[in-house]
């Protein structure tokens, strides 16, 4: 009886001390962790839309979209997170677009677990820079083994077709959804007559 009591007392004390320590540590750490997460989002927005001075968070399709404004308060574009599955796992992309949601201003890869040295190259500057000032209409497309041609075309990474095409697919899906939700009727569909000069063919997947 004495032994069991001893065991119970020790375990209760261990539990109580452990719980108290963890609660105090949590209270100290949680605000810092929230700040870190917000700072990571803010950094990503500034990376894709460098002229942003301030941003406003709006909710679209139960997701958060960041309305980027310059120092005069004018809307200069939108930034949002697009997610989807890549070759090995989830890819999370911060996208910056102009205020008409027609041109992609830049992207940044927030999360990805693609193959190191191959698919992971989507996180590197050369791949991401391709998306600067690319037209998102009617959709972004990719080509393999040759240089990108049209205003909405990028070149896939050699040996990482699935990762590259996943990025393109994720972007197109998110942009289409956002255009429907944010732009007024009549502006949110693609019309051949609005085509940017230089796009000689209508898009489709090119091989």
């Amino acid at each position: 009886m004495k032994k069991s009591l001893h065991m119970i007392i020790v375990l209760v004390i261990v539990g109580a001390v452990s719980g108290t320590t963890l609660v105090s540590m949590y209270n100290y750490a949680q605000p810092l962790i929230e700040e870190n997460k917000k700072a990571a989002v803010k950094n990503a927005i500034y990376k894709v839309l460098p002229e942003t001075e301030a941003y406003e968070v709006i909710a679209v399709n139960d997701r958060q979209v960041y309305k980027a404004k310059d120092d005069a308060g004018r809307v200069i574009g939108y930034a949002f997170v697009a997610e989807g599955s890549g070759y090995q796992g989830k890819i999370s992309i911060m996208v910056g677009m102009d205020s008409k949601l027609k041109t992609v201003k830049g992207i940044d890869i927030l999360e990805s677990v693609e193959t190191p040295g191959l698919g992971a190259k989507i996180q590197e500057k050369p791949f991401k820079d391709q998306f600067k000032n690319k037209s998102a209409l009617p959709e972004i497309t990719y080509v393999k083994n040759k240089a990108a041609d049209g205003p909405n075309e990028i070149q896939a990474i050699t040996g990482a077709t699935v990762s590259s095409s996943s990025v393109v697919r994720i972007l197109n899906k998110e942009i289409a959804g956002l255009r429907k939700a944010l732009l007024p009727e009549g502006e949110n569909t693609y019309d051949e007559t609005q085509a940017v000069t230089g796009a000689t063919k209508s898009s489709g997947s090119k091989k």
Partner: protein
Amino acid sequence: MTDQLKQKPEETTGLIPAQSLNKTGVYRLYLDFIKGLWQENPVFIQLLGMCPTLAVTSSAENGLFMGLSVVFVLTCAAAVVSMFRKVIPSQVRIVTYTAIIATFVTVADLFLKAEFYPISIKLGPYIPLIVVNCIILGRCEAFSSKHGLIRSIADALGMSIGFTLALVLLGGIRELLGTGKVFAFNLPQFIFEGFNVMGSGFEPWIIMLLPAGAFIVLGILIGLMNLIRPRP
């Protein structure tokens, strides 16, 4: 301290001759510490804690932070276990040690997330997994539960620093061969591209960044260590 000098030779893994353990306090403390670095290195000699060793050593930076977290957890846990070793009933000792270890691991995890956020993202689930790292429970059970506070701390520091050195070595080799650079750092406090040792003409060995490379490098390192050290 006198009761410690009267104790009979402590059990170790048998790799250190028993007579050297009966020396005076400071030298014995030194031996307690130094054995974890080389003779009884947890990774290369005892082959403990292989899972995080293989998983997080894709770069020297990752290996360093994982190792430092283990230094913190093992030293604190060993100190607490040693301080209360006479009070904890032996039937519930493993449960108690695990609870103590888990508390310190959670503290370390929260601290990393708060102060070194990018590293905590990269190390991901492997920090919470320190709870089940054999090295920590192993040292608490084999040494801290049977020895005084100062000796337990020395042993814990030696083992965990030995672990850190092993991880940095493994991570450094894999990072060097897998990216051409070594010791790249990406922290909020400090960004460094890494020493470009291999030069720009080097085509990285991608396999070194994948799990297969971890096994290969670790196996070769263990083989080399076995060649160098004298047979007991």
